[in-house]
């Protein structure tokens, strides 16, 4: 078990290094191949009034004239030992872990990310609990009551849930429930959990439900399919023949086997969500990682995009590692050596 975890951790680190190289290349190498010069990179960080000379000075100062490996190395070393940036008036510090320094907003990226993680975490955890419970429960019931009105209604709603985009359901539900009926919080509301847990939940209720609706649908359909398959297996018949209680048959034998694929996608979905629920956060104006990524892309703030991509990648890699470990718990056939 321990060697397995160590092996996987080394793999995870390697994966992150590769992700960082690919992201770096997308933003700093590919544009060069397409013909962008160091000055073009620098002009992003200059105002409307910058002249050519000013841009050349900035390009040199920000190191865009250095060879690519040097630039990449500087980025990596920043993560471990921090960096310094000369702004003309002062020298700004970007302490380790320095995941980049935004020359547009004049601040290091990492504190921003740390500041935004609680929002994304709150959104992702709350929504995932709702969709996992709601989706799996609906799926199980649908499978057990296959062909009834409940099954058909649930599956139709599920289909609608998968099909409707969140920027639509989100805005419509805000207009109805927050501004029309006034029962939920307006867009952009967030209270940290430790400050006031009740308000925290109240503010996030609408984003949670809207986001959960989207995923619950997929989980319900998946659970239903899995349950239908396992419930027709021979060992279920055997369990029933032994005179086992029906609830035990369904939960212990049926659901447990059907859960394995659910767990896989749940882990990945949650990991992705932790990297930022881009559409949900921007629809509800929540200041999480997804919103950060959108703002960074809109303003062409490359260091921010790099930083948020790395954090998102970290979450996905971690989540898939945890899923693999959980496999052993859920499915006794899997043994980690």
């Amino acid at each position: 078990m321990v060697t397995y975890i160590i092996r996987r951790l080394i793999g995870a680190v390697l994966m992150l290094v590769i992700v960082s190289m690919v992201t770096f290349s997308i933003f700093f190498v590919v544009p060069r191949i397409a013909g962008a010069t160091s000055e073009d990179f620098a002009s992003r960080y200059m105002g409307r009034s910058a002249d050519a000379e000013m841009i050349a000075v900035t390009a040199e100062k920000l190191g865009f004239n250095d060879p690519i490996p040097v630039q990449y190395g500087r980025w990596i070393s920043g993560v471990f030992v921090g960096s310094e940036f000369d702004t003309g008036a002062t020298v700004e510090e970007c302490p380790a872990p320095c995941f980049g320094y935004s020359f547009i907003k004049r601040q290091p990226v990492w504190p921003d990310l740390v500041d935004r993680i609680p929002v994304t975490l709150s959104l992702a955890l709350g929504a995932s609990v709702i969709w996992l419970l709601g989706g799996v429960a609906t799926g199980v019931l649908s499978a057990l009551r296959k062909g009834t009105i409940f099954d058909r209604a649930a599956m139709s709603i599920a289909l609608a849930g998968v099909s409707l985009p969140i920027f639509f359901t989100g805005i419509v539900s805000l207009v109805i429930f927050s501004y029309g009926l006034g029962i939920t919080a307006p867009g952009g509301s967030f209270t940290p959990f430790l400050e006031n847990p009740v308000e925290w939940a109240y503010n996030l209720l609408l984003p949670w439900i809207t986001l959960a609706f989207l995923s619950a649908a997929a989980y319900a359909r998946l659970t239903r399919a899995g349950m239908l398959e396992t419930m027709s297996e021979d060992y279920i018949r055997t369990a029933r023949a032994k005179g086992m209680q029906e609830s035990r048959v369904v939960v212990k034998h049926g659901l447990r086997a059907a859960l394995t694929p659910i767990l896989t996608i749940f882990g990945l979905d949650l990991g992705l969500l932790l990297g930022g629920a881009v559409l949900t956060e921007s629809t509800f104006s929540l200041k999480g990682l997804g919103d950060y990524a959108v703002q960074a892309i809109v303003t062409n703030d490359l260091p921010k995009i790099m930083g948020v991509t790395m954090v998102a990648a970290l979450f996905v890699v971690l989540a898939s590692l945890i899923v693999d470990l959980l496999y052993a718990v859920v499915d006794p056939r899997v043994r980690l050596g």
Partner: protein
Amino acid sequence: MNKRSALAFAAAGAALSLGLSACGGGGSETKPADGSSAAPAAADAFNAGLEAVFNPSDKKGGVLKMAISEDWDSIDPGDTYYALSWNLVRIYGRSLVTYTPAPGAEGRKLSPDLAENLGESSDGGKTWTYKLRAGLKFEDGTPITSKDVKYAVLRSMDKETLVNGPTYFNDWLDLPKDFKSVYKTPDVNTDSAIETPDDQTIVFHLKKAYGGFDNFAALPGTIPVPKDKDTGVKYREHPVASGPYKFDKVEAGKQYTLVRNEHWDPATDPIRKALPDSYEISLGVNADDLDNRILSGDLHIDLAGSGVQPAALGRVLGDPALKARADNPTGARTWYTSIVSDVAPLDNVECRKAVIYGADRVGLQNAYGGEFAGGDIATGLMPPSIGGWKKLDLYPTGTGDVEKAKAALAACGKPDGFETIMAYRADRPKEKATAESLQQALAKVGIKLELKGYPTGDYFALYAGKPDFVKKNGIGLATNGWGADWNDGFGFMSQIVDSRTIRESGGNYNISIKDKEIDAKIDQIFTETDVAKRDALWGEIDQRVMEQAYVLPSVWSKGVLVRPLGATNVFVTGAFDMYDYLNLGVQ
């Protein structure tokens, strides 16, 4: 899908459309949130806020809520170049002079702010003197002196550190050669540019005369900055207030909050009412949600001031109750297509005219969103809110005049038309639509356009704004737009009609106007201290631009603004063509 589940699906669809119609009708409530009736009902009409103050009041207290869908460059007064920011900055900073808080054209007039009077010029317009009021204080209680204004202006000129602001002071002040910046060469004597003979007096010396210097003195760059509190790029984390409000919280990309500055003395400030107890400014709010919140009364002001999103536009214009809450100001911004006068055959004025005659002017208006969200069809380069504007009527504004276009082509020696390339910003759908409209309309007269999209970020630096790129690639038409830095001829025109601003290295906003006659008129304007005469000259330049067919104007930009529920002193200022943020209050 079998019958029963089809039924369930239809039911779900019906429920959803019910929800939608609920959202369509949900915002038609127009009464003020607290039921008070400070405003006469008659004032509640479309465009009522353009010429009159809506809900006038002196009631203090409350929280004024503002929001914006993105973030702007900076709240540092020396580092900002957005109209919304120049409008907002005045609640926490006081420049030497500023725009009079009044609706319509009155709002374009300047009032003294930190200074006792408007500038006094001597030396034929090369020297400008201002005297500060007595009793001015920063938020920490230290007195504001003319040296703080001087320091602020000098620091705002360091474009390496404070990259965003305008460069008017860099271009016009008579600085010594060895002065680099307040940070790099703090000991260099700069009295040749700005003198401060005593703590109340500040004297600006220009390289050449300029009669409109008061407009420079209204720039946020003259908002005083205490030297010992200046942290360079970090000053934006807490600009020191000289106005009635100071920053409480500054969270970049998330929110700003401002509270009362107890060291601001109303006796020193005849133009500010300072009504709300505090301001809450949310950043990065979803644009559609922002509109919905203003319609429902949950928010007061969309800081961007450029109008509602397409989603809310239909709702506002379609609902009489909501339309009565809307204002539709024309901004000091023109969207136009440059007709490049040194790329053959457009070097012939008749060929340039053929382009204007052939264009479908209504189609171009629709490309920008039509009458309300796009703007009025522009008949000249200069928008109507600029002093000296006069209505030009040189070309038809219909859907294209094929006969006249063909006649012009014949006069140009190209009776069968010609081919040229049209550049536009590829990631701007409105500019793409402009190019496509022009391509279709001009095909009817025999002018074949090849459309080429270029990235917005480098459009002026590397492509349309770089003369040798334009010539080498034979770009005859390039669509773009321009907004005034302030609403007078200089603030709008100087960067886009003066051929001497064109730099070979690129980054030019003047793509097509290279005319000696226009340049001569501009020189004449600089030495003219009479505003009316200056304005008239700008009007003549506008006429010359159109006579020579250097640009094909599309629209003078407009946006649909919605007046907030529960706010007082709401009106559109002619200075920024958005709601005036100086004296808003809460009911």
